[in-house]
């Protein structure tokens, strides 16, 4: 305000030139210019800069959530054969379309994908901008990324070991474990209210079969959809359990459904799927794998 | 948003004697009810400073003139057109600089005749916004001085924000 509308003739030339002149003097005698000589000097980028993606193959479970959240459809899942990990699916990124928005990093349930400080991705050909999973692989994150998301210790059920003894529900001090009956199986399974769990590990200690184990789970900021199971349509084929990347689905025998064979013996009982939804990452692979419309996905029709 | 609302209500209780008249939202609703008893329906004070009302489309021009000249709504913030299954809605957000009020006027038009009166002679700022609504949604504004496409090419045939428009 003070400098407003000065009416002296110095303002014509001298005052503006004083400002730039002092800059020349500063730049020449007191220091270096503000810029860097790019190809030879580079600025140090902060950790957390959103550049090229890196994928930790060991953490990644191949759930394809990153592919689904991508606003530009620039990611895809590629089937791979890895000597260490076997048959896996891992994401690839097309940098010709990538926005570098970081939503894939945020939604990843296991924090397996991250954006690194590498930014020199330009290429003369569009096809070279497609980076497959092998080019993105980097199994050591330490020091390269900032892991901001909180981990929580949560009791995760291994349904194949559970005997429905209900000891965990009795032990839980927060009363957050409820035994819910599994329809037409005649058993119950513990369902854990994750919001109230304090990670006290008592349920893990009390479980006689080691079916409840404390696992570290990353907190998610996204509300993910959960599959809705229709028992009537289920044929027990197990396609969903094979498709599930997070081991959420267990196939369990339904007692009393055994077919009586010709020789009077009982055959194998029918199976049904049981969902341990505490672990579910909401990817929808089971829904897509099911051929008998036994799974419903909120808001999506096949 | 909600805590703003709380704050406002506490203030209201303090000056309870002439409570209705000192609350600008209530004053606005009253004035409109008196002037257009039949045309305006569905009043709702959404939150402090935002009033929603539905208006019959025949009375739009009169109501807007009333708003501008009598109630001091000097600024038209936004004109948006929304397509529903059975109708178009043209939503006017009108601001009063003095009372710090935002009035949301919702006008319904049928699907086969999407037209409302133009308010660009009342608010100059409505001119381009009406052109935009015409361009993208195909709402006709009767009495608009220059109702031409504004964002899309002049010879474009579709109104892309309609739900039956496909990108290809």
């Amino acid at each position, binding site marked *: 305000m003070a400098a407003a509308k000065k009416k002296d003739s110095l303002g014509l030339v001298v005052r*503006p*030139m004083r*400002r730039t*002149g002092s*800059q*020349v003097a500063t*730049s020449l005698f007191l220091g270096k*210019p*503000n810029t860097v*000589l790019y190809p030879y000097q580079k600025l140090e980028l902060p950790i957390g800069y959103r550049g090229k993606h890196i994928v930790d193959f060991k953490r990644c479970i191949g759930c394809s959530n990153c592919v689904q959240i991508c606003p530009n459809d620039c990611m895809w899942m590629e089937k791979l054969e890895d000597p260490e990990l076997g048959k896996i699916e891992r994401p690839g990124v097309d940098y010709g379309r990538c926005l570098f928005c970081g939503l894939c990093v945020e939604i990843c349930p296991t924090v397996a994908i991250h954006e690194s400080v590498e930014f020199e991705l330009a290429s003369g050909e569009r096809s070279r901008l497609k980076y497959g999973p092998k080019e993105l692989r980097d199994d050591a994150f330490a020091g390269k990324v900032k892991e901001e998301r909180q981990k929580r210790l949560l009791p995760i059920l291994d349904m194949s070991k559970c005997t429905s003894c209900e000891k965990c529900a009795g032990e839980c001090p927060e009363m957050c474990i409820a035994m819910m009956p599994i329809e037409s199986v005649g058993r119950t399974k513990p369902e854990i209210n994750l919001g109230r769990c304090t990670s006290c590990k008592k349920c893990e200690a009390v479980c006689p079969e080691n079916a409840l184990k404390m696992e570290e789970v990353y907190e998610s900021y996204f509300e993910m959809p959960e599959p809705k199971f229709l028992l009537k349509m289920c044929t027990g084929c197990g396609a969903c359990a094979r498709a599930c990347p997070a081991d959420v689905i267990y196939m369990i025998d339904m007692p009393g459904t055994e077919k009586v064979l010709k020789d009077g013996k009982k055959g194998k009982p029918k199976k049904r799927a049981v969902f341990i939804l505490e672990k579910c990452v909401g990817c929808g692979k089971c829904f897509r794998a099911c051929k008998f419309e036994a799974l419903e996905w909120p808001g999506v029709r096949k | 948003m909600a805590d703003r609302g709380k704050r406002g209500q506490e203030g209201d209780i303090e000056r309870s004697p002439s409570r209705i008249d000192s609350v600008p939202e209530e004053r606005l609703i009253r004035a409109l009810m008196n002037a257009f008893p039949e045309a305006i329906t569905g009043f709702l004070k959404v939150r402090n400073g935002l009033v929603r009302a539905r208006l019959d489309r025949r009375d739009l021009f009169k109501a807007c003139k009333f708003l501008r000249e009598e109630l001091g709504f000097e600024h038209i913030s936004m004109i948006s057109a929304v397509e529903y299954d059975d109708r178009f809605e043209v939503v006017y957000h009108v601001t009063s600089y003095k009372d710090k009020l935002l009035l949301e006027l919702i006008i319904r038009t049928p699907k086969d005749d999407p037209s409302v009166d133009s308010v660009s002679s009342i608010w100059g700022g409505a001119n381009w916004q009406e052109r935009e609504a015409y361009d993208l949604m195909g709402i006709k504004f009767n009495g608009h001085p220059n109702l031409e496409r504004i964002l899309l090419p002049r010879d474009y045939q579709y109104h892309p924000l309609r739900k039956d428009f496909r990108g290809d």
Partner: protein
Amino acid sequence: MNLFEFCYGIIHWLVDLVNHLWYWLGDLLPWWFGDFFDAVGDFAASQGHLSVMTILLEVVVVVVIALINVLNFLWIFRKFMARMFDFYGPYYVGYRIGGWLQNLADGIKLFVKEIIVPAKADKMGYLLAPVIFVGSSILILATIPFSVDFGVSTNKSGDYVPAGALFALAAFAIAPFSILLAGWASNNKYTLIGGMRSAAQMMSYEIPLLMTVASVFLLAGSFGFVDIVNAQHDMWFGIPLFIGFIVFLVCLAAEVEIIPFDLPEAEAELVEGWTTEYGGMRFGLFYMTTTVRSYAGGALATALFLGGWQGPSLIPDEIWFLIKAYIVFVVFQWMTWSLPRVRVDQILGLGWKRLLPLAIINLMIAVALKSMGWF
């Protein structure tokens, strides 16, 4: 030995060499043919012909040196601008000499670009305009001597181009015509407005410019550069004619079209003004010529107001002259980058309402000084 003697020696030696062959050839031929050969050879060896050829050679030498100098200027211009804007400037091309070769690289790049003539342009005018612009600008360089010994002179005694300063100013004033021509011939509204602005602008600054220069002529009593510089032996004209010097610099800025007064190519409103339709090497020539004119402006200011090549004889006169011209040039650039552009009506107002009265006052001061007998 001055430049004339040097060039005269070269020309004389060359003519002698050729004439030896020539006469020998003439001897072989029949008598009537040989007589013709003799006549031509005599003409070639005559004083008049040698003088003309010498002057042409001098012009070439001075212009070439001045153009090499322009590379320096461009480099200083870019480096200075870079430092003012807090970056490095040319750096990699000619790494060891501070990026000096960058301009050469740019020139080569411009050379290989396609030559495009707009379809609806007036071809004649479009092609002629750069020739006039570049030619007239380089003509200025030929008239300005670097020192008593180094400049285009007409005889051994160092009698330089008579009325050289006047000639330089006249050559300076041709450019707006070519700008108008280019603007009109390009068949583009921006270039047309640019050309018109150039003409309008010339009206406003040319008169005060010439009036300040007139005061210098008055004090020096001559139109020639050497006499003017010699007259400043005791005191630079810039000191008694301080007002005139300022007016001269402002008008010169308008003349060379740098930023407070670069209306004909006002980048923000007229894209590139009158050069909009010129691309490739033509644009490169314009770019170079603008720098040539800046240098010529600096040289004129040096010769007319800053004592020319006069200075302590620690360093040669030519270097003195160049240093002064460089300083004026740098001040010009400094002004360019720190000032906004004025509007077209404002430059007219400035020219007629401010500069012209100041120029008249300056002329009166000069008359007073002359009549007091101080100069």
